[in-house]
């Protein structure tokens, strides 16, 4: 079954009806022309929010640890006094750790979108469904 709407309010009404009737959002495909927080809140009543945040967290922590560990290791691997500072000069290494936290966090989040959103989707690259700016609900038949 496929429902198409040009009007957002009518779409939301229909969507709410379907969701209230007990249909899980995982069993249908909803297509929207743009991100919409109201619709997101509505659906997330019935579906858990995105797990992408864990990618960001793990990426960021990895970056932070890498930053400190790598700088400390290189300083200790070949011991050379520079600027009369200790080998493990953590205040200086914090800058590196900070930048790597952000770099790894951002790249992991991007990877999160690709993995969770199953992108890139090669079959859709060249032959997309053309819904233009319509809101669409597609319910896959159970049988």
């Amino acid at each position, binding site marked *: 079954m496929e429902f198409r709407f040009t009007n957002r309010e009518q779409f939301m009404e229909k969507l709410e009806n379907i969701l209230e009737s007990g249909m899980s959002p995982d069993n249908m495909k909803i297509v929207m022309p743009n*991100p919409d927080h109201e619709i997101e809140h509505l659906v997330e009543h019935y579906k858990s929010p995105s797990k992408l945040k864990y990618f960001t967290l793990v990426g960021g922590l990895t970056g932070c640890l890498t930053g400190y560990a790598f*700088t400390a290791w290189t300083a200790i691997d070949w011991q050379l006094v520079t600027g009369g500072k200790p080998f493990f000069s953590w205040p200086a290494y914090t800058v590196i750790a900070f930048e790597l936290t952000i770099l790894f966090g*951002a790249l992991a989040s991007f990877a999160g979108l690709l993995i969770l959103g199953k992108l890139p989707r090669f079959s*859709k*690259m060249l032959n*997309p469904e053309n819904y233009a*700016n319509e809101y669409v609900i597609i319910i896959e038949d159970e049988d």
Partner: protein
Amino acid sequence: MSSHSTNVLGSNVPERDELYAYNYKAKLEEDVFAAVSKPTPLFYIALLTALGCVGIGATSWAIQIINGLGKAGIMNPVGWGVYITDFVFWVGIAHSGTLISAILFLFRAKFRNRFNRTAEAMTVFAVLTAGLFPLIHLGRVWFFYWLFPYPNQRHLWVNFKSPLVWDVFAVSTYLTVSVVFWYIGLVPDLAIARRIKESKIAKTLYGIFSLGWTGTFKEWQHYNQLYKFLAALATPLVLSVHSVVSWDFAMGVVYGWHTTIFAPYFVAGAIFSGCAMVITLMVPMRKMFRLERYIAIDDFEKLAKLLMLTGLIVSYAYIVELALALYVGKEGNVFEYEQFMYRLTGDYAWAYWTMILCNVISPLTLFVRKLRRNLIYLFVLSIPINIGMWFERFNIIVISLARDFDPYAFGYYTPTWIEWGITLGSFGWFFTFFLLFSKTIPVLPVTELKEEVD
């Protein structure tokens, strides 16, 4: 979501009917992609001019590589000259792009949606330009990879205590994250381009870069979260990048560099110059691409206010560094005192007062509402601000080095034509990218503007 009918379809549209949002979205796509499609003769003239400048820059660099760094005017005691000035200038230009796309996103400032695509593009291209300068500044550019920490035969690592190495990490992280952030925002718009474009080649290319985006709820759900996190990561990043750039100087012992206000002072200056550059780029673009109905005078006024605010912060920083030098006085710290007296009255006084005129005096005119809302005035004003911010970096770098501690080591630096040629080339390089962007990628963030109308 609230309606924005005032600057959307004009005041002569009395009511929103059922199809209002749907029609608006279609019209928006049409208008934005009309701007992206056919290059005019003017575009080709601009592109050729920009490429010509790139040619001049490349030739100058080639002359420098063949003959050595002596072709540039940098020499003891002024070892950092126009190249490092250009580097800081271009990194600074980049910053307002991230401010607009990330910080204003977190603050839910709606007007950012008009500027963020262009401002982010500007960020990416400006960092690409800035990244060239540390390389140009190298005597033996073919050894540039020595900056990166890789295991070499001598088992030596780079010195992570050096601000120059921090800079390598900060700037390359900034470039990577800016590209990712920009690209993510682009993906849904590229999917629209894939649908709208007629030619097969365009459809294929946009299709590939759109990653097969279909706009399903699941995709948007992850996309929203990703966008939020990237904005939250880019915000501290942008503040850190120019802080690290400022530490290239502040960690040194030279007076005029060695102060604690440098990080916030540089960040404010960066956003100041970047906002000026956004205005320089967007005012003509709005006119040429007929985007008047999407970018209102009110939106520009908000940018102008941002320019005012950061201009005042920059002015405050100038006063603080000068006041501190005068406060400790000749008896307290003769080097710092003399450095600032030299800036005010010495050989480079012309550069110092140019900076004051451009960065302190000229933005004060924005307190007049009429001027703030006059696009031609804003455009004209943005150019001296760009020049003034270039001179700010020139003053900090060159004047401090020209007169440090030992009078026997004082010097005077005159840039050569090689350095000016490369500087011109950097503008050409930046504008080449920008012009190509303006004809291949939607210059307004279509999906974000669609979201506003619901």
